[in-house]
């Protein structure tokens, strides 16, 4: 036991200040099992009384080897693993993975599938922000917000279940479109959510926006300059809260985002409160996109008819020999991908989510790398935390809004 501790301190010796080695400051372990670290994150803190002198995140407790595992599965089977990365943004992960395959294979996606993809990922964005809001305020000792946000999140999860049969790990998006069309009740369910949700956002804001306790805990906490943020690779609401309007949905529209009218909310303060305001506004904008997409939802097929990549519908199997061959080949071996590599990025609720996909021409991906936003957003935590109180560190972990599954992959 002693040996183990010796190793881990010596390993980190070069990171802490001289004062820690002389015993003037205290080294404290926070996590990996700690309610406010949002998963299994270990933080080694160097404290001068209550003030954080240094903070070293230690990650990898949730490492599941997804990148390695994907290399031995066919492209379509590997899609199942993408849900497990960022488990609050499953559909967003599906989307960016499918986009990478579609780009590499030059596969078309029908307009109806594109629109449904947008509706579902935007709903997922709201759900993810609701989890963030609930847990963030929970960390700041405002317990009741959590119950309200999870009530609304449940409505979105129910929509997920309605379309895919799964509450969270949906794998609903497939290369070339969707797994299947949405059921008829889908539109009503989404419309009901659209009608209820704006009132609910007001409810949350009524509880928090001018609440003196909340303001005290979030104003001027964890300010980042835009140079620092860009240099550290910070993306998403954290970057937009400093006034950099970087949103891939606007900059390089994918899945037909160019058809929808929406704003990219920004703020200039760059503190925890600014990040709160940006995310709240983002939920409203996401709702706007859902509304527009639903109003103009085109009819038609939801999957490409390119039979070299997309299995034929069941109905064709009885009449077409070719369909049987395609069905058999696609479900046993998978499809062969053209040789080459692409990098595709999309805007997840946490920032730029990218996939680097390399193919050697075979049915399995040769290498998949996930550029996950949480990885960089957590990396900047020591910069944010320096000089703050331990209690504020908890607020900073909340406002960073990382998902450990996204970091450790």
């Amino acid at each position, binding site marked *: 036991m002693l040996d183990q501790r010796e*190793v*881990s301190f010596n*390993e980190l010796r*070069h*990171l802490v200040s001289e004062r820690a080695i002389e015993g003037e400051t205290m080294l404290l372990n926070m996590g990996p099992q700690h309610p406010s670290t949002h998963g299994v994150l270990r933080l080694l803190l160097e404290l001068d009384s209550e003030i954080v002198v240094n903070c070293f995140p230690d*990650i*990898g407790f949730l*490492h599941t*080897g997804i*990148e*390695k*595992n994907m*290399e*031995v599965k066919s492209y379509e089977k590997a899609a199942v693993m993408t849900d497990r990365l960022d488990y609050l943004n499953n559909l967003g992960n599906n989307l960016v993975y499918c986009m990478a395959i579609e*780009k*590499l294979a*030059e596969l078309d996606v029908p307009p109806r599938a594109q629109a449904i993809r947008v509706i579902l990922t935007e709903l997922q964005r709201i759900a993810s922000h609701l989890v963030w809001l609930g847990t963030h305020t929970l960390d700041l000792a405002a317990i009741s917000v959590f119950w309200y946000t999870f009530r609304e999140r449940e409505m979105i999860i129910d929509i997920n279940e309605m379309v895919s049969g799964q509450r969270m790990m949906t794998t609903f998006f497939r290369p070339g479109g969707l797994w299947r069309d949405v059921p008829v009740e889908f539109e009503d369910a989404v419309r009901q959510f659209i009608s209820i949700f704006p009132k609910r956002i007001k409810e949350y804001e009524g509880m928090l926006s001018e609440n003196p306790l909340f303001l005290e805990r979030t104003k001027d906490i964890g300010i980042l300059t835009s140079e*620092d943020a*860009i*240099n*550290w*690779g910070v993306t998403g609401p954290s970057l937009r809260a400093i006034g*950099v309007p*970087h949103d891939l949905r606007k*900059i*390089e529209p994918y899945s037909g985002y160019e058809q929808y009218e929406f704003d990219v909310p920004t703020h200039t303060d760059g503190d925890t409160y600014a990040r709160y305001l940006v995310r709240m506004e983002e939920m409203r904008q996401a709702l706007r996109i859902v509304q527009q997409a639903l109003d103009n939802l085109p009819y038609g097929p939801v999957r490409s008819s390119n039979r070299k990549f997309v299995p034929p519908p069941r109905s064709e199997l009885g009449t077409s020999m070719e369909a049987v061959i395609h069905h058999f080949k696609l479900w046993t071996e998978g499809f062969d991908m053209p040789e*080459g*590599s*692409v*990098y595709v*990025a999309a805007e997840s609720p946490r920032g*730029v989510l*990218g996939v*680097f996909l*390399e193919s050697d021409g075979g049915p399995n991906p*040769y*290498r998949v*790398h996930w*550029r996950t936003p949480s*990885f*960089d957003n957590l*990396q*900047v935590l020591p910069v944010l935390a320096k000089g703050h109180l331990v209690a504020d560190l908890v607020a900073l972990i909340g406002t960073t809004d990382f998902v450990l599954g996204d970091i*450790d*992959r």
Partner: protein
Amino acid sequence: MNEELQPAVTALKERFDARAEEFRGQTTLFLPSDQIVEACQTLHDDFGFDFLEVETAVDYWPKQNPRFHIVYQLYSIQKQLRIGLRVPISGQTPSLPSLTGLYANANWREREIWDMFGIHFEGHPDLRRILMPHDWEGHPLRKDYPLGYEEVQFSFNAEEIDQDKPYAKE
């Protein structure tokens, strides 16, 4: 190729031994490993590529030379441009200069490459394993690293497989 990207590609071709490749509308520049820091410095200072979006590696084992490609994606927040870089490196003692001086977030990304591929970064301030336990042996994302799996038990071989399982027996 994107027209706005052209000046950067031309400049890099002139100043360094760069070779450009175009695939699916994405531009990738191949660079030798000893020039990567200067090349990134040029892209960073002169062309505004201030954002390191991706840094990762690909293993082409059993090929030994070059066994690895280090893959970078640089992004310019101002101009909204993306450029890919690739650095081929040999499989014997793989090593290349670190980008941590230029992009702060290269720190963890290079630690991840060290952890997963065993590629050494010269001048990295804190090159430790990041995702795997600190006493782990081997580098999991290398192609010669086996993916462990459990053998499926059928009635005819259940006992035979059971004997090799690591759990305690009566």
